[in-house]
């Protein structure tokens, strides 16, 4: 993740062009490619909602939940260029009633939780206005 540009960093196979996220791959997983060289690349910061849901109960550790627990919404978002779906929370305040399948969203950074004085930041999806 890159704080300034707010895009996810994946990796891309130098030989066949397949994207990977998370980017920490050792071997290209395309069966017709045996490359093990990758470039770190930014992934599209906009996509289309493939589906969505929420979490009404507190998940177990290692999730660090707000106290009291606040439900949050989750979306699976399809990136056009990469032809892949990436999961993530929807931005704080967005509920399942605010989104639909096919809606356009863009990436934002959000502090998921603070622990020992440190902010843990992750990507979230924000519906486009």
């Amino acid at each position, binding site marked *: 993740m890159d704080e300034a540009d707010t895009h996810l960093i994946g990796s891309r196979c130098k030989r066949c062009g397949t994207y990977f996220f998370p980017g920490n791959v050792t071997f290209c997983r395309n069966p017709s490619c045996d490359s093990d060289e990758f470039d770190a690349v930014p992934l599209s910061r906009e996509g289309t909602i*493939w589906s969505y*849901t929420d979490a009404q109960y507190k998940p177990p550790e290692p999730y660090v939940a707000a106290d009291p627990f606040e439900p949050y919404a989750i979306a699976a978002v399809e990136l056009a260029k990469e032809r892949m779906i*990436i*999961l993530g929370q929807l931005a704080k305040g967005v509920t399942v009633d605010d989104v639909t399948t096919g809606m356009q969203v863009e990436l934002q950074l959000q502090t998921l939780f603070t622990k020992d004085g440190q902010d843990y930041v992750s990507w979230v999806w924000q519906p486009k206005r």
Partner: protein
Amino acid sequence: MSRDVVILGAGMHPWGKWGKNFVEYGVHAARAALKDAGVSWQDIEFVAGGATMRNGYPGYVAGATFSQALGWQGNEIMTCYAACATGSQALAAARAKIQAGQCEVALVVGADTTPKGFLAPQKGERPDDPDWVRFRLGITNPTYFSLYAQRRKDLYGATDEDFATIKVKNAEHGFSNEFARYRKKFTVEEVLASPMVASPLRLFEICATSDGGAAVVVASKEYADRLGSQRQVKIGGISTVSPKFASADVEMPDIATDSAAASNAYSFRASIAQKAYEEAGVGPEEVSLAEVYDLSSAMELDWYEYIGLCPQGDAEKLLRDGDTRIGGRVPVNASGGLACFGEAVPAQALAQVCELTMQLRGEAGDRQVSDAKVGVTGNQGLFGHGSSVVLLR
């Protein structure tokens, strides 16, 4: 080409939360299957055990552990693990051993003891482990179930009532099943009144984890005939295929699908049963009944399509027409399914096979599907595992 392999006997330990060691469930199921088959333990030449990863070393070597508990007698042993497909993989190993001519009769066993509550990942910071990362992001098993459920609502017009109807149907099916853990009937209203877990799925629509054990005795047809068995069920086909890259399914525990930027996209789940049908030489239109993985109520609808009971998008119609109820055209989860059992990972795929065996023999009692001739199972789990078994009367 190869010789026929049949199921000679099936046995189970009732599902539940009994707090016993998994070995007890496995041995109970194995002895029941042996008795049902009319085969003595000492005649078994090969044991394929489904591993459990929650019970220390004895679980890693379940094939050996069950063999020792039944009494070492020099049989060959194997232990398999394939998440939810474990039981089918063990069954496939036993079938291959028999078809290869290396043995005539084999025992396949899976059993598990599960902890209470949420299935959480192991402790410790493991940013390289996708299972750890998704929990860190707040993505639990129900998240995946609900993403598929919501997509059905938006694309195919599924309703919350449809999802609840599946729970009601399966609870009705499993009500008289002595091996089921939950034997209680529900109304659609009761299901819809249960707390929302992950929209649009509610508490009564999401599968629990259970203790349980299941076993089958399999043999060459020649062996079964020599034994004079009149209750043989033929194994038509078994599929334990892996996905094809790029796999387009949103799968636990991944936070992203494969990228199809440089490849074609494939649906893994839709490919699983296809291979089992091909091996069996039957098509979905010939299926009398199916046992599929209703990890959530809504997921059963996806499975109608994965196993070819209807085209994509038509599952809701199949359900609403009552086709998948006992008495309907092609009953699904006559056992009660995961809704009534709860999942006991290494036993579950075998439990599906046990149910089909009882049904194809006409021994399923109150939940008997009439004139059952062809049965199919479907299940799918973590890390590219899935399986399907076609049984024939």
